[in-house]
């Protein structure tokens, strides 16, 4: 029998429903308006793909989208590599000199205001005399997103049963082989989820990209941002809907990966 103090009350249900509606309604409205045939927001002119066609004829916007996708893919890959290595160091390295600095450097970018990260990286690139464009944005995004990858992979590594690695080593594996043959397959889903997160974060960033990019190489969010400052444009609704669709696919893949991860974790536990 449910106890009065622990029961799910009507108040609980209402706040939950309102909260979720608050989170989702604006996005749903945006998606619906992207199919509006009318240029005016007040008028519903029927369903149409007009604004999507407009986007696919907009050379500058397409270039920006391509720039964003390639920066996202390259930086997410680098970030996943570095972030996973960092997670292994933190979760398995026991105590070492400089550990506190290391974890501090990895956790603070998660909350650091973007204007600070962006400005500081730009000043570094200027001091190094680096030409600003694709690579500077990629390096900036790698630095930010590898921290998120580290957190995702590290939390997976800490809950993983360590006796599996130890058994492999007892059976004659050296640590590197034990990691590659036992640990790595078990954390692959977390690594995949980390890559996806890094990619979407890179695809989303305006501030750091604005600081670190050079003239003529704007990313999609930079372009969207400068259009949005001038007001609502139906074409932007269409672009935003496409980005949302892309991210939705990514979320499905990532959640599938993490489901796989927890399923494997459970099956590994009784060992």
């Amino acid at each position, binding site marked *: 029998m449910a106890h009065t103090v622990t029961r799910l009350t009507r108040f609980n249900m209402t706040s939950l429903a309102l909260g979720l509606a608050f989170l989702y309604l604006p996005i749903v409205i*945006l998606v619906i308006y992207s199919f509006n045939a009318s240029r005016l927001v007040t008028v519903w002119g029927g369903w149409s793909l007009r604004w999507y066609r407009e986007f696919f004829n907009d050379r500058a916007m397409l270039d920006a989208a391509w720039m964003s996708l390639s920066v996202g893919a390259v930086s997410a890959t680098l970030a996943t590599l570095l972030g996973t290595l960092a997670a292994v160091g933190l979760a398995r390295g026991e105590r070492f000199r400089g550990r506190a600095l290391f974890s501090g450097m990895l956790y603070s970018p998660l909350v650091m205001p973007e*204007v600070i990260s962006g400005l500081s*990286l730009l000043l570094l690139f200027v001091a190094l005399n680096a030409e600003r464009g694709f690579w500077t944005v990629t390096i900036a995004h790698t630095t930010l997103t590898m921290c998120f990858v580290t957190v995702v992979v590290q939390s997976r590594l800490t809950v993983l049963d360590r006796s599996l690695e130890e058994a492999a080593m007892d059976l004659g594996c050296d640590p590197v082989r034990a990691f590659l043959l036992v640990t790595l397959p078990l954390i692959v889903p977390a690594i995949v989820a980390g890559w996806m997160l890094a990619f979407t974060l890179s695809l989303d960033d305006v501030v750091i990209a604005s600081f670190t990019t050079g003239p003529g190489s704007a990313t999609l969010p930079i372009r969207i941002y400068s259009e*949005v400052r001038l007001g609502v444009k139906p074409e932007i609704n269409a672009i935003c809907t496409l980005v949302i669709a892309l991210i939705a696919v990514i979320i499905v893949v990532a959640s599938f990966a993490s489901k796989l991860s927890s399923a494997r974790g459970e099956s590994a536990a009784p060992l």
Partner: protein
Amino acid sequence: MSARRIFARPARLAAIAPYLWMVLFFLVPFGFVLKISLSQTAIAQPPYTPVFDFTEGRAALAAFAQLSFDNFKLLISDNLYILSYLRSLVVAVTSTLILLLIGYPIAYGMARLPQRWQAVAMMLVIVPFWTSFLIRIYAWINILQHDGLLNQILLALHIVSAPVVWLSTDSAMYLGIVYSYLPFMILPLYATLSKMDASLLEAAGDLGASPLQAFWLVTFPLSLPGVGAGALLCFIPIVGEFVIPDLLAGSNSLMIGQTLWLEFFTNKDWPVASAAAVALLLLLVPPLVLYDRLQRRQLEAGG
């Protein structure tokens, strides 16, 4: 035990590459911010005169004599900066409180759902975090603009007789901030609330506490770590927020992130922008240290 120690050595070696990366691209850049914040503005490319060249190996004392604290003096003397810092703090504190008030009931509702539904609700809260932040703000501009959906509904219901100005107001900015940061508040709250032992509440109930008393005397005090984590996770980035106030708030009072952006991109005054960044960073050191501690404790305990 010994297997762990043998495993630890290559694990530490694995950390070398990310360690060097973070030193080069996270730590060293702060050195440049500090250095440029102490230099003079110049009309050149880059727009500052270098304070000292590390390569020349000049005596440290001589170099120090060249340092200019003018930019920091400007920050203190010019009202614009002080007002922006104050505004940033006020906005961040207010938003964090609103987030707590809205986020707590939602997280509480989630924690009380049947186990199977908790995973679904958690997923539903995480999804907006993945969806582009800029797009979500843009979605609100669609709704809040002069002939947007909100005004249409209000007019149709005869609640107002003329369209209300929503954009470029503080209310729109708070709405945008709360909307964007809500998942960051809900998730840590949910994490502590869902781990709470239900038998504690039952015991309180058995001892005669009403549900409200049980909440204030048992649930709320036990959820304080989650409250702290959620508050820091929202407060720190909101202080330096740029995009939301820029798109939704009016332009008559700026947050520090906007001032920094303006100095940098519009006025091309890199030294002053750097000084503003250093001051902002100093402001954020205590909450950052607190946050780092919480995060480390949570991750290393396997929470």
